[in-house]
């Protein structure tokens, strides 16, 4: 098991347990975490599951997936160095990944 800590733009925090290998997006949509739309269902074609990853956890998120870099340039909220598409970030065994949800996905 691992976990993800989601912080909303208004500061509300919610922590959820994740199965190893589950994506930060899948866990969010399964549990009704607001602000992660993921309209394309994780097929890397909508850029509506954008998150800012806590800098201390960035190394746990793996490299940018093929085309993720291009898609991150198209997100509604500004791209930062810690931006990722949450459908591409998988939670590893024992890992805790902290993310902040941007003010808008559209």
């Amino acid at each position: 098991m691992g976990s993800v800590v989601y912080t909303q733009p208004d500061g509300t925090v919610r922590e959820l347990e994740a199965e190893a290998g589950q994506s930060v997006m899948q866990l969010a949509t399964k549990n009704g975490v607001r602000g992660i739309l993921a309209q394309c269902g994780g097929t890397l074609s909508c850029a509506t599951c954008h998150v800012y990853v806590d800098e201390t956890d960035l190394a746990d998120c793996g490299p940018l997936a093929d085309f993720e870099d291009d898609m991150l340039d198209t997100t509604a909220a500004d791209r930062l160095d810690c931006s990722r598409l949450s459908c591409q970030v998988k939670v590893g065994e024992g890992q805790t990944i902290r993310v902040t949800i941007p003010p808008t996905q559209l």
Partner: protein
Amino acid sequence: MSDSLTEYPFDLRPAPEAVAHQQRIAVDRPLTRVAMQYGDEAWAIHRYGVAQQVLTDPRFVRGPFARRERTVPAAFEFPEFLLDTLQFADGDEHKKLRRLVQVAISPRRVQALRERTAEIANELIDDMIAKGDTANLAEDYATPLPIRVLSEFIGVPVEDQPKFILWATTVLSLDTPEDEVLATGMELYSYLLDLIAARREDPREDLLSSLANARDKDDTLTDAEIMPIAMILLVAGFDNTAGFLAAGVSALLRNGDQRERLLEDLDGRIAPAVEEILRHAMFEVGSPMAGGMGTVAMVATEDVDLDGVLVKAGEAVYVDPASVNHDPAAFKDSQIFDILREDSPQMMLSYGIHSCLGAPLARMEMQVGIAELFRRLPTLRLNGEIVRNMHVLTIPVTDLPVAW
């Protein structure tokens, strides 16, 4: 009228009864096998979870329709040109095109159009006010707004917009003679080809320029690849947005409490309001509703178990979005129109790799269109019944009489 659980699809009935029937069917079973007017039988999906599963499962494909091996199961004869569009491509071919287009129609790109859309909306409202204190909102606002935004977004010069609009609406007509549709389609096609060539030569800040100059690893997109993308944006980009805009305004005007909630914080509440309009507004416009509409079908490439029902290899499935969006397992009190509904991942714009390509644009147009209308005309009220044209593929709203 019978309300048997086995009755699906079902005929027109008062909207609240239609919703209740959809809810009961979704509880009763995940899928129903349906005989279609065209093509083979197909399974209609009623449950939200099953719809999500199918729309993201690569074992369900549309290639057999694109290759003309099978007829698309549907209530109407599927227009031939749509079979060559992105909507019918599978796998890597789809992925390559979809991603290139997605960059051109991304949330960021659409954000940049928000201000211009508000300007166009206000010009249209100015024109309505100048004419008096009543209007046909469909004709004067809900239809021209997305048409003008999309024309500018695609890159159609202002002077060509009237003929472009005429061509685009004619190719969607279900009762125009076939040879006329074909001839109009050819005119539109060659017009767009010329425009693509011009934009390749002299790029501007518009979609055709982006597509004409888009590169993937191997090469630039060819005209043959760009054309179906432009065509599908036309098809989906006009009438659907106009229809939801009109239905949304009508639903708000018929539900005074919801309209008040929106007016209390127009800018803060318009985004969830639009999601709720997409999910449920068609059931709140006062017209009877039938059950059975669906997304384009997909074919199973192997046997797949869906919530206990075996769908065999070669069988077709489609999602009934109205049913899925009222599945009690996914939406609490799904019969209630609640613009502040939280965690409402409605599926009207579909889901997965074939989810609506223009979704960011459609959402933005609806948000801006409805917010500006109520900002300028807070006393807006209904002045007659909504009318839809059943002879056009997208069933556009033709009349929505309002006064202020």
